[in-house]
């Protein structure tokens, strides 16, 4: 399967990437990693790019690593539309102090607009 994973710069993104890499190793998917431009997140786009690169080499997984500029949701969906992807993977939301699942506006945009199957990683 041809998988595209979209990452912001949160801890949730790291978790999403780790799980997706594990899955890629298990089943031999083709993986593309898109690092999104999300200025308000914990890691900058460059930091996230470097961290993704490090996780990939650590796992010995070969994947395409790209940076997408502009609005994160629409840039990701655009990229998914242009490639031959079977699945789009994103983080499955954060937990509030109370334990409520919170899906942000990017998740909502991707769910409502993506042409492919979308997987939310928890």
């Amino acid at each position, binding site marked *: 399967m041809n998988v595209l994973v979209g990452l912001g710069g949160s801890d949730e993104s790291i978790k999403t990437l780790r799980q997706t890499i594990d899955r890629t190793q298990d089943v031999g998917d083709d993986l593309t990693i898109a690092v999104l431009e999300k200025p308000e997140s914990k890691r900058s786009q460059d930091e996230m790019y470097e961290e993704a690169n490090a996780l990939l080499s650590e796992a010995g997984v070969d994947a395409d690593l790209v940076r997408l500029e502009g609005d994160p949701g629409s840039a990701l969906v655009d990229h998914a539309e242009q490639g031959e992807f079977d699945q789009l993977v994103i983080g499955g939301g954060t937990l509030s*102090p109370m334990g409520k699942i919170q899906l942000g506006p990017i998740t*909502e945009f991707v769910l409502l607009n993506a042409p492919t199957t979308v997987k939310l990683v928890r």
Partner: protein
Amino acid sequence: MGRARLYPDEPSGPFPSPPSTIEDREGRDIEIQAPGELTTDLDAVVEMYDRFDPTDRAQGIPPTGEDRIRNWLETIAEESVNVIAHHKPNDDDIDVDSGADSGGDVIAHAMLVPDADDPAAIENNSDIEWELAIFVLQDYQQAGIGTHLLKHLLGHASDVGIERVWLTVERWNNPAIALYERVGFEASGTESFEQEMSIRLE
């Protein structure tokens, strides 16, 4: 944690403080209390959530199954601020299953949980923001209990020095949004599947 939330400039209140006994629209006596710590009433609250209809869950809470419910409440119990509503049996109701005076079953619960990395280190409750949630058992909904309970939670919060309260609610949860707006919550922050709302207390 995260980005700054917006709060209304104008404070809301005053709100009533617990304890109170109110009569709901069905004529039931409902007692509203603020336990010193949730841990004292934990079993009764776990039982209430165990009876909660899962179709009314909101954003993954309450969890289902007694163990998961207990786990969830234990995680947040210590630092949270709570109000609990009991249905007090009337004199003409025969309370068969409890010999001792149980004060009736817990039928609603509302709480505030601090948004802090280290809740134990909180010095002033006004320094931090508090997340709110409220649940009323299905058989007791739409009888005015949610409104009373919410007001008493905010009254109690104000008594313990809390100033900023926020929540998120599923955008289509009209009963809850109507309830929050009525006491003074205003929409804040971005809208997605959840609407964020906030209130400033006196």
